Structure formats: C-alpha cells, structure tokens
C-alpha cells in the first residue's frame, strides 16, 4: 500500500491528490493529518495522475502535508447476526461500548441491483395496527413506503408505532414460518440528539433494541458521512433478510438530510446542477437505495423500507419528495392541519397511497370486503372534504340531507378511524368493523362501490349493531 503526500487542492469536502499508480473508482482512502488524526474518504473521480477524494468526516485539519493511503478496495460493511442489539455510528463503527464485532462477512455497500427476474412480487400483508395504514393504504412485505412529513410533525412517533406494532402479530401467529424472525434496522441521518434519544428510549422501553441495529449519524456528525449511512444500513438489512431469513423493517430518517449531503458534494465538484441545485443523478442515486427493498425468490426474508422525509415548506413538488414518490411504492402523508386538530397519527389518507395494496388484501389475506370498503371510504371522505369548503360559504342548512351525512361521515372518519392514538394497536378486523360502523352512517344506495353481497352482510341497519362502540376513547 502506497502512501502519498501529494495533496494539491482541498475544497469543501473534496481533496485532490496526485498519484503515480492507477486507483479504482469508488475505492476507500485513509488520510492521516499532521496531528495524527485518521480520516476516511472515497474516490469520486479517478484520472491518470490525479484522483478526487470525498472525505466523510469533512476536510478540516487536512493540509498539504497530510498523507493519503489507498486501501485498494471499495467500501465494505462487516456483517454478522451479532449486529442485532448494537448501536453504530454513521460509518458502521460501534459506539455503544459493547464487545468488538467479529464479522462473518464483509459486503460491498454499493450493493448490486436485484435482477427483476429473481424478485418475488410482494403480497404479504403487514399488520401495522394503524387503521389509516392497514385499512386504507396497506403495507406489504418487501414494499418501500415513505412517510412524507414536514418539520414539527410527529412522524417519528408514527415510525416508532409501526416499528413496535408491526412485529407483534407475526410472532404470535408464527404458523409454519416460525423461522423468519422480525428485525428493525434504524438509520438516522442528521437527526438531532434529542430525536435520537426518543428513538433509543422507545427501543429500550419496548425491548425492541435486541432485535434492532441502530446506525446513528447525528446532526453534528459530518454531512458527507450521511451518503454512506443508508448504504451501510441496507447492506446489513440485505444480509439479515436474504442470508439469515429475517423479515427486516428499515427505517431511514431523515432522507432530506441525505439529499442535502448529495447536493453539498455536487456543488463542491462544480457539477451542472439539476432542479433546485440538487444533482441531476439524484433520481438514480435515490433509486439505488429504495430499490434495495424487496423479496427474492427462494429466500425466506424480506426488506421493507419506511424512509421518512421532511418536505421543505410542506411542498411535495420539491425534488426530494417528488423523486422519492416516483421510486417508492406509494407514500403516507402526515398532515399539519390534522396534527393541529390533535389527531394521532395525523395521517391524511387522501393523498396517501400504497401501490402494492391491491394484491395484498382480500379474501385469505385480510378480509373479502377490504377492497370495497377502502374504495367507498376514500370516495365518501373525499366527498365530505369537498363539502367542507362549501359549508364555509353557504352553511350546513343549505345542503341536502345526503350532503350533511357526508359531512358527518368525514368528521367521524377523522375522529374514530384515523385518531386512534400512538399507543393503540388495532387488528385488521377491528379496523374494518370501524369502517362499516362509519359507512353505515350513509344510506345503502350511496354505497355504490361495494358489492351488494357485502352490504347485505355488514351494513348496520341501526346503531345497536355497531360492532366497535366508541373505539377511540
């Protein structure tokens, strides 16, 4: 291994060095400063004689006398089942004072694309216990379903609720797939120490930590390191899922910080920027993360992703949520208005979507009437929402009886169906029964999206038939 003291230029997170051998693209670099500090970096561009290095920890402290070592390999993540229960930093080094990790394998963090031919189509329902998700935007194993939120919203609580509850029914039911256990991998990118503490306390309180791996890149950690953290997370997830048969739930927060880091590197390299200064390759870059969710034929495990992103200005046309939405299989919107009304979780189901839902629900998976109930509730709630605008102008009296019923439905939908509290865990049966309780507020012939057979079976002719009385209280 050759050492160079040939740094010619230092600019932002980038270091340029002259070399007299050929250095591979993406190779890992160690830089030792005059003070004896060792920094790590990665080759971003390799030309004859000169390489551009992106330094994860930032370039402060580096001068032209610092020595540069090329390790001759691309970045690897040491993986083993023993990682479960451990807390690591954003580059995968333990920070929990635990024993040293003896890796079983060292895997390339870039991760090759899964051959679409080898994938298995995800259609196994995950019960999150959250009605607004299970009932209206069902999550399935191997899906990538981001939470679109904005600053100051309780997206972390929602993510924790999902992480906590999604695991439970799997272990209870067990049936013949008992070998597949559940694991949570949590990747924090640029979140505050306080947020991180909340997650950690919740993990410890519920005992979830022992089947979790936590990667922490906090707000004051180097920004460039954030570009590596999710790759470490996903490499670990793939290992546990496809080699150790775990059902892995990956929570990545906050993707916005990740994208900011990409932009920072792009700007330092003086690249031609795409929209709003983000690099033109951001779609490809994000896809290389999100597409690592999925199932593979012949393998027991699965990787399900819930990336969280805070939309700058609560604007979903901003490049980060926009590109994410084009890659992921739907999205869950956390709505500031609903939050200020005190709904927990404040999920707005209308713009939310789960693309894989249709194959994951129905007879034998959830319940035979699920799809119809969902469609009808969407239509009725949308109708009620529209009428709310009108009420503000003409008042309730000016509306027809049916319109008033839609308004009542919309109110009840929010207060009884969506607002369940962060601690309540509802099974799918309960969610659908609440759905029918609500739909029965509307006249039968307004239920045009539901099969007549199901109306016969489930429609409540009068209030006494309500199955779930005052569920939310």
């Amino acid at each position, binding site marked *: 291994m050759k050492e160079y003291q040939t740094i010619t230029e230092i600019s932002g997170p980038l270091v340029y060095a002259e070399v007299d051998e050929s250095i591979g693209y993406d190779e890992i670099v160690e830089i030792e400063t005059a003070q004896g500090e060792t920094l790590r970096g990665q080759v971003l*561009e*390799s030309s004859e004689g000169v390489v551009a290095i992106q330094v994860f920890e930032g370039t402060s402290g580096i001068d032209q006398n610092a020595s540069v070592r090329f390790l001759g390999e691309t970045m690897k993540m040491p993986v083993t089942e023993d990682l479960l229960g451990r807390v690591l930093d954003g580059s995968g080094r333990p920070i929990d004072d635990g024993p040293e990790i003896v890796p079983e394998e060292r895997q390339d963090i*870039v991760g090759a694309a899964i051959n679409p031919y080898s994938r298995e189509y995800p259609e196994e329902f995950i019960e999150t216990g959250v009605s607004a998700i299970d009932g209206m935007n069902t999550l399935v194993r191997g899906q990538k379903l981001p939470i679109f939120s904005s600053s100051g919203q309780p997206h972390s609580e929602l993510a924790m609720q999902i992480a906590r509850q999604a695991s439970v029914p799997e272990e209870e039911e067990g049936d013949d797939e008992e070998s597949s256990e559940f694991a949570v991998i949590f990747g924090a990118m640029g979140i505050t120490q306080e947020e991180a503490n909340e997650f950690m306390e919740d993990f410890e309180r519920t005992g979830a930590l022992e089947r979790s791996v936590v990667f922490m890149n906090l707000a004051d950690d180097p920004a460039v390191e954030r570009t590596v953290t999710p790759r470490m997370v996903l490499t670990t997830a793939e290992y546990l899922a496809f080699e150790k048969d775990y059902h892995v739930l990956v929570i990545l927060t906050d993707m916005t910080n990740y994208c900011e880091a990409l932009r920072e590197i792009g700007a330092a390299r003086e690249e031609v920027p795409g929209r709003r200064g983000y690099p033109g390759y951001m779609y490809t870059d994000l896809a290389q993360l999100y597409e690592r969710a999925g199932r593979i034929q012949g393998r027991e495990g699965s990787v399900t992703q819930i990336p969280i992103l805070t939309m700058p200005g609560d604007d979903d046309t901003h490049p980060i949520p926009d590109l994410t939405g084009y890659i992921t299989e739907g999205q869950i919107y956390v709505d500031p208005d609903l939050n200020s009304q005190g709904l927990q979780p404040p999920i707005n189901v209308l713009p939310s979507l789960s693309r894989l839902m249709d194959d994951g629900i129905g007879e034998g998976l959830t319940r035979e009437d699920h799809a119809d109930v969902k469609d009808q509730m*969407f239509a009725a709630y*949308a109708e009620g929402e529209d009428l709310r605008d009108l009420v503000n102008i003409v008042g309730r009296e000016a509306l027809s009886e049916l319109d008033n019923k839609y308004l009542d439905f919309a109110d009840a939908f929010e207060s009884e169906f969506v607002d369940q509290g962060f601690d309540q865990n509802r099974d799918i049966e309960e969610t659908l029964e609440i759905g029918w309780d609500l739909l029965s507020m509307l006249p039968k012939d307004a239920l045009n999206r539901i099969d007549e057979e199901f109306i016969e079976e489930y429609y409540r002719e009068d209030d006494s038939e309500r199955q779930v009385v005052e569920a939310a209280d």
Partner: protein
Amino acid sequence: MSKAESTETTISEDGVIQSVSGPVVSARDLDARMNDVVYVGDEGLMGEVIEIEGDITTVQVYEETSGVAPGEPVENTGEPLSVDLGPGMLDAIYDGVQRPLDVLEGKMGSPYLDRGVDAPGIDLEKEWEFEPTVEVGDEVGRGDVVGVVEETVTIDHKVMVPPDALEEDETTEVTAIEAGSFDVTETVAELANGTDVSMHQEWPVREARPSENKKTPRTPLVSGQRILDGLFPIAKGGTAAIPGPFGSGKTVTQHQLAKYADADIIVYVGCGERGNEMTEVIEDFPELEDPANGNPLMARTSLIANTSNMPVAARESCIYTGITIAEYYRDMGYDVALMADSTSRWAEAMREISSRLEEMPGEEGYPAYLAARLAQFYERAGYFENVNGTEGSVSAIGAVSPPGGDFSEPVTQNTLRIVKTFWALDADLAERRHFPSINWNESYSLYKDQLDPWFEDEVADDWATKRQWAVDVLDEETELQEIVQLVGKDALPDDQQLTLEVARYLREAYLQQNAFHPVDTFCPPEKTYLMLTTIETFNDEAFKALEAGVPVEEIVDTEAAPRINRIGVQEDYEEYVEELKSEIAEELRSLY
C-alpha cells in the same frame, strides 16, 4: 455489435483508460467511431462511444464502474450497439442492452446483477421447426419472407431476407431452401447473390429499419378501456403520451394497455422504473389470457426491464432496443404496440450522461438535443408499408413523469409537440380514487375523426354522435360545478341539477373502470357503447319526466338508475342493459 457473435469477433484497436467518473469513462489511443461498442477494463464491461476529442474517446458504460481504474484496457469491437433479432424474443425478458435476465440469473448464480457477464439476446442453440414459404427458383427481394417458424402458440415468426442483403428493388433467386429443424445461426436459405439467410439478424438500435412508406392510420388500437376507446382513441400506428404525477396511475394504465390492447405483439419497456412492478408483469403475464385467443399473454410479449437502480447508460439505450424489436415484428406484417414507462427516466439518463460530459445544458439541465431525440423515437412509430409489401404498425405509448406533476416541464412539452394522443392523468382524480384518473377536460386524441368510420362500421353507426353527447354533458358539468362551488347544488334550477346527475353517471359508471375487477378490467367497445346509451336513456327519460312536472328530487331518488353503476361488472351485459333500460323508462314514466 451484437452479443450473439461477440465471442468470435477478433478484437483490434485497444486503448487505455484515462479517467473514470461514474458511468463515464475516457480512454486514450482508442481507434473508434462514434457509437461503437467497446469493452472496458479488466472485467470487460460493455460500453458505447459517445464522444471523440483528439485521441481521447469518451465511453458510456452499461454496467457499474466501481473499482475500475485508469490504466486498464479498453477494447473496441468496431461495431455499433445492435440487437439480436430472431425467434425467441417473445416470452423473454431483457435488460436495456438485450441481455436476457433469466439467462443472466443462471450465469451469475445469484439474484443480484453481477458485472462483466454477457449473453446473446436470443438462444443460439435452440432448434426451431422451419417451414419454407418460397421454393428454389423463386425471386425474392429485401425483407421478403422465405419461411416461418412457430415462435409461440400465438405468433408465427417470419424469417425474412435481411433488408441490407439487397439493394432497393433488386431481386435474386432462391438457390436452396429446405424444411427442417435448425438453430438460429444455421443457414435456412441460400440466395443467388451469395446471401445465406438464417433466422438470426442483427440491427443497430439507433437506426430505424427501412420501410417503403408511412400511411395514415385508420384502425383503432382497441384497449378495452372505456375512456380511451370511447373518448380518446389511439390508432394502430399512432403515438400517445400519458403524463401524470406519481400515484396517478401511469403504470396501471400502461399495464392495462399491455394486457388488453388488440395488437399482435406487445413490447413493454420498463425504463428506469420500479423492480417490483416489472416482477408483477413477469409473474402476471404468463398466467393472464390474451383476450383475443385465450393463450398466455407472454406468448405475444417481449419485456425490457431496466429498473431505476440498474446502470443509467443501459437505461438510455433500452428505449432503442425496444423500438428496434418492435420494428422487426412490424416488418413481418404485425401490429406492434410499444409501451415505454417512463420516457422521463430515459430523458434523465440523457441528462445524467450529458452533464458528466460537461455539455452545455439546455432547459432544466436537459441536453439541447432532448427534443430531437424524443421526436426521433416517436417518428419510428407509424402505420407502414413494409419493404416486402406487407403492412404493419408500431404504436408508441410513452408514460411521462413530470416533476411535481407540472406539465410545463421540458419532457412533457417536447413530447406533446409530437404525439397525437394525450391522456392527462390527474392527481385530484387519483386522490378520490377515480381510476383510471384520466382528466377528460385536458386529454385529447387527434385520431378521432380518422377512426370514427371504423367504430361506425364495427360497433354502431351513431358512435361519434353518442361520444359528442357525452363530451357535451361533461363540459356542461364542469361549468356548473364552478357555480355549485359558490352557491351549492340546491340553488341550481331543476334541469341543471338533472344534468349534474347524468354527468355523475358518466363519471362514476362510464369513465371509471376497475382494473382489478375480473370483468370490469376489460370492456369491449360494444359494451362501452351500450353503457353510454343506457346513460342516455336515463337522460332522455329523466328530462321527459321533468317536463311532465315531476320534481327533480323524485327523479334522482329512483331505484333502477343507480344500477347503471353495476353494468361494468356484468359479464352478460347485453341482457342486463336491455332490462335496465326498460326498467329505468318504466320507473320514471310511472312518476307522471
């Protein structure tokens, strides 16, 4: 350069890598022409020459370049990127440079896509039963069919004289031809001018295959989707764009077209989209029945899957690979429909490569040649008279994913300048689960007039009149809704309230269609027509009742009319519709 013969090619002019940056590699001392295929580095990664400046050649690499270092060799094959054409392309799934993904899985022994592994686009060893259609002594010209093989249960693959074997209008004599079992590389016919015709041809992807001339398309590509066939039809040989923000149903619409469009051959290009979506196609299509003949859908389908996480350069080429395969089947006289999902990802791949080349950017960072490339692609679609005298068509349907759902961005705008059918997807409709969420006010089809004669002959002679009636009612509704937003529905006069009710049936029963319902998912034009006439029956009877003095509340609150919403799911719709029409009339007449 086709992969079928890459093993035998002798490689000459070598170069040396000078620099590596993502998918863009520069090489020194490489003697190459533009668009030549080269093999890069010790691992032999496939790439294509995209820029030459002095003795520096720039190459876009179709595979991941991690670990590739300056000093490694670059080998030139001296041939442009080509596809292997021949039997075996149907029921196959390829990546963006026509490597079969199932073969790659076997060769790599892993569910992940490894680097430096190559495979020919068609199976070179498989034997096919060749049946000659010409005899020794017959005169043949370029593109002429010399025989057929049964490629799948649905499709007979026609073996043609390569279009570049002869000059235009030149003919030559068949000197030897025989029936029997051959693999694709063996000669099945010999021609007097020295050409050996085999089942295997190659064609450079960036060059359109020759044709005699292009004709005005006059037959619709019937899709079984009510809003498309009924309001915004596309012709066989036509072009269409489906722009829409995420979640508005572009992919479902594309899948519905691939499943139910009455084309002979479907080429489905998944360009930079989701892996799970391609898996859905791979899993569903072999099980789904072709509505035309009951055979598995895969028997008429060729899939190209270059998902968003696969190398970006191969995403740039996958559209060309797709359209070249489509043209080849067109030459056999088939009607081919090509779906590209999504052309925006293709444009982004161009942008990414262009920015790595440090080209001067045009609008929003896209290269200045974006419009030209889009136009070139859509111009390869059309209804053609082929060089061998047959007629065939390539219909191109491109999804567009505008950032933020804003149609004013460059890809949407440049696409709209070329295509003649525009199906605008609408986030508001999707949000209220109105699917397919195609906005009937914004969408258009410029083929309507030239296709009407077909619908009038085949379905009903008042097809165009009925359509205009529906459009008028929907237009009126849009205007009325603006008033309703201000004053409420009850403030409208009775006749306008009734119009809203009729429009509601049009929207809920006619325009909405459930892609996941086994019956409703495919709606033949006859059913589309009958559904419309049922709504019109309600309209006519209801207005008669209103004139006779029946209050609008009573008309709206009838039993029979809501069953219009269930026509879509009826298998025996003819009987249902007849009954329903008379019940609607009876009930409304009983009110006065």
